[in-house]
């Protein structure tokens, strides 16, 4: 890990630690989504096992958008962005640092949300529970790495907060599908999630690589 990456990482963590804005808003929002879904779909018995994976993934997805919108907005004030552009450090390290930071935030939210989720949906895991430790991080990484990249892409536009969701969600669909299918398979224990985990892994590798390669183009676009 190089110094530029480390500096960005520590800086973003410190900013978040002082306000906890992103984590608190995400936590509350994803909690709301879980409650709203359980009201809308009345999850009882086997049905709750089937939809729980999807609800968890969609709740994470909606919640993380609020944090992703903040990811770059913090840098706009006081022309920090322009300073970043002039800095001799490669843009890819800045992107990677932001992805790691937001990945940590979303993961913290997932861990905090998990107990409520199990209570509200009366879940018991029929499949191999440890695989969730693979599926959720992979899916979150897919969401966050694309999300941070597209937040940078949408930053210079009018109504950028709306635009982020509009361009992120269509691209994220295959990862969402894989994540939902894998968590569903683990909760119900009826099928093997390995295929979906491989798909998630492939998606992560492809899109993270492309993001890192193309980030300088987006970052210096003018």
């Amino acid at each position, binding site marked *: 890990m190089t110094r530029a990456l480390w500096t960005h990482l520590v800086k973003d963590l410190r900013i978040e630690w002082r306000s906890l804005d992103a984590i608190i808003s995400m936590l509350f929002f994803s909690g709301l989504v879980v409650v709203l879904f359980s009201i809308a779909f009345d999850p009882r018995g086997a049905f709750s096992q089937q939809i729980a994976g999807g609800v968890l993934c969609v709740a994470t997805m909606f919640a993380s958008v609020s944090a992703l919108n903040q990811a770059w907005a913090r840098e706009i004030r006081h022309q920090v962005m322009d300073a970043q552009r002039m800095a001799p450090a490669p843009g890819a390290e800045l992107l990677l640092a932001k992805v790691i930071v937001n990945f940590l935030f979303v993961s913290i939210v997932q861990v905090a949300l998990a107990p409520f989720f199990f209570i509200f949906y009366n879940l018991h895991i029929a499949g191999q529970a440890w695989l969730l430790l693979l599926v959720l991080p992979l899916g979150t990484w897919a969401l966050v790495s694309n999300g941070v990249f597209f937040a940078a892409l*949408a930053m210079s536009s*009018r109504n*950028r907060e709306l635009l982020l969701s509009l*361009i992120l969600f269509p691209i994220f*669909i*295959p990862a969402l599908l894989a994540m939902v299918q894998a968590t569903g398979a683990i909760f119900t224990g009826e099928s093997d999630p390995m295929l979906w985990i491989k*798909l998630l892994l492939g998606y992560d590798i492809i*899109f993270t690589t492309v993001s890192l390669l193309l980030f300088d*183009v987006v970052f210096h676009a003018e």
Partner: protein
Amino acid sequence: MKKLAIGLYAAVTAGLMVWGYYQAIYVAPNDAMQGEIFRIIYYHVPSFATAFTFFSISFLGSIGYLSFRRSRPEWAQMADAWALAGAEVGVVFCSVGLTTGPLWARRAWGIWWTWDARLTTTLVLWLIYVSYLLLRRFSAGPQMQTLAAVLGIFGALDVPIVYMANRWWRTQHPAPVFGGGEGSGMDPSMVGALLWNMLAWFAWGALILVLRYNVERKQQKIDEAEATAALNA
């Protein structure tokens, strides 16, 4: 001269479309299993073939823009105009395909829509290119072209992944009619009508594509002239 050529081409295209319609509705026989409703294939398949071709043009245009934006600005502008025209006209043709599909499915399957591999892939493709057009609308200035090109590349990368994901998921769309396994292929009496319609719709799409490209090039030149005038003022 240029206008005359475009006019002639448009006339030929119109003729082709009339001929294609005649072939599809009057010449081709009824399908043994599906009856009349199968004739929608003469519009469904050409629309998607055209849409996918134009999306590929858009993808190539995006790559071209990013490659040339520093070295050859003029080429980059042309590539960007192709990227925009391909995406816009592609979305229109894709919408036609997405409309004719459910019309057929309602009769053949008894349902309008199913979340099957090809249907989902196409819908996601459509969503991606609509979001691409939205990005172009919401962003302004020269950086918009760069951002749009990046999104164009991301979108194109996503399509094969969506397709594979859905193949593993579930599939209901008819197996490929051409080059598929046993029972695939079309009766020779139907192939002619399909090829004529393919040609007609492709010619029509190309006409719109070129017109859209020219409009965008003109717009680029107007913008450039305005920018220059503002600098000199």
